[in-house]
């Protein structure tokens, strides 16, 4: 599974093209370095990582490392019913931060999907529409998300809306671009086949273009989810009240260093889970792809 995960999560979704059929067995066979990692070895990896963290910070107290929160310290704080700095698995505040961040992600991600997918389909489908709209899109795209911060604060009065807006913008560009690529990567013969079988343009859009672009759309949605978290954290650090980015930020200001680590770990976990969810939905919708590679039934 690692191979598939690695590809699916890569930030390069836009450049991958999905072929309609898997490569013939003769070419796919015998990848020189292919094998899935074995679980016990990965445990060795985790153990080494955690041990290094513990030793460097808490035992040897290496220069510079000594100031970082240590493994034991973080673990104790995280699982404490009465945490020293107010945030642990047993405090309501912890979940409130997670919930606020999640709400913002859901709002921004769904808005980006609902707008980006249709726009991307249209961009890929109509050459005329693309030639008018895409240059505008490409002019705006290189501007980094955080450079939008002041503008979004000016445009939207509340901090809440502007945080969601920033997250939305990031996801929107990724989703739209990948959807467009998805449409463009459909084999032209497939569209021609549908035409000569008597399908109308509307039927082609519904039966050919939309499902044909689906693999790219979902690659895009996974990247989009990653980018959403990226921008959300940045936005929350600048102008949030609550949220995991805000938690990390204030923990630093109040010198509550273990809380920083708790925030980071939580972000990693929640971010990973949300990407996995997108992947799961994608797999559901694209049973044909799983069955091609012999995973599904």
């Amino acid at each position, binding site marked *: 599974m690692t191979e598939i995960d690695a590809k699916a999560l890569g930030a*390069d979704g836009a*450049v991958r093209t999905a072929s309609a059929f898997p490569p013939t067995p003769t070419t796919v066979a015998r990848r020189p*370095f292919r094998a899935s990692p074995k679980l016990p070895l990965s445990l060795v990896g985790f153990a080494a990582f955690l041990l290094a963290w513990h030793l460097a910070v808490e035992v040897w107290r290496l220069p510079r490392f000594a100031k970082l929160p240590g493994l034991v310290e973080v673990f104790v704080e995280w699982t404490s019913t009465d945490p020293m700095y107010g945030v642990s698995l047993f405090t309501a505040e912890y979940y409130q931060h997670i919930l606020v961040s999640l709400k913002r992600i859901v709002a921004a991600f769904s808005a980006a999907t609902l707008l980006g997918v249709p726009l991307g389909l249209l961009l890929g489908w109509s050459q005329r529409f693309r030639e008018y709209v895409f240059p505008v899109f490409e002019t705006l795209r290189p501007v980094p998300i955080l*450079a*939008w911060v002041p503008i979004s604060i000016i445009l939207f009065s509340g901090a809440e809306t502007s945080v969601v807006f920033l997250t939305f913008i990031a996801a929107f560009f990724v989703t739209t671009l990948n959807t467009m690529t998805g449409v463009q990567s459909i084999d032209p013969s497939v569209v021609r086949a549908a035409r000569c079988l008597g399908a109308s343009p509307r039927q082609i859009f519904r039966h050919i273009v939309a499902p044909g672009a689906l693999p790219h759309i979902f690659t895009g949605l996974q990247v989009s989810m990653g980018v959403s*978290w990226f921008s959300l954290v940045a936005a929350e650090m600048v102008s949030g009240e609550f949220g995991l980015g805000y938690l990390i930020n204030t923990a630093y200001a109040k010198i509550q260093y273990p809380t920083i680590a708790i925030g980071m770990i939580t972000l*990693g976990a929640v971010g990973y889970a949300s990407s996995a969810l997108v992947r799961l939905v994608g797999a559901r919708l694209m049973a044909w792809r799983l069955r091609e590679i012999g995973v599904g039934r």
Partner: protein
Amino acid sequence: MAAGPTGVAVARSPYALRRAVVALAACAVLWQLGARLDDWTGVGAPGVGALPSPVEVAMAAGRVVVEPGYWISSALSFVRVMGGFLIALAAAVPLGLLFATNRTFRAIAFPVFEVIRPIPPLAWVPAAIIFWPTQEAAITFITFLGAFFTITINVLSGALSIDPRFVEAARSLGASRMTVFRRIVLPATAPSIVVASSIAIGLSWEVVVAAEIISGSSAMGSNSGGLGHFIWASYLGGSYDDIIVGMISIGIAGYLCSAAVRKAGALLTPWINAR
């Protein structure tokens, strides 16, 4: 036919250029109208009404580009981007290749890598500031993180998708393991490295700007300079036209960097476009 920005060959009509100009001009005109509507009619346009007009932005740009401060900011950001990006490149390419060629190492280290990867780079800001002695080092580190994971993953998947026949053909021709690595695996992965780099340098700009704004806007760190800070300072100072000048500058800088990486990549992989 021309390769689009996404690598898929896309037909371009003879009107493409004209349509692009028309669309961009229409946007500029609408923006101008929206921004000045309040002055002319007393009724503000929603959203755009709060922004400076394109004419004001153009004038601000004319003013700003002759100020040395603007160029110092640009240079600072550029140095940070290049620092983070180059260190990431130097670290990620060997790591990706190691993951690909050494199965045991991959089994041990890749899961740890995968657990750390979903943590957004900016969540590292506080930890980086605590750890690194200077703010400059911290910002470079964050920039490094942004590029590092992307390059590693792409190099790994690029190396894993090498056609096995290349490796077998080389072995059949008597190549040693080292030769296979140097003359087969490395060049066959080169196109992935190029693609990854052009994505990663874009990410570096994202991260640098974010880090500069965060360090200027929160309790963390102090005025860091750079284009991100330029935008934030313009916001605090109320000169909204400068904000947009800053955004455009960063957009252009990021675009140029990606283009330069792609160009360098094309020179390093001459066989790709030799047709």
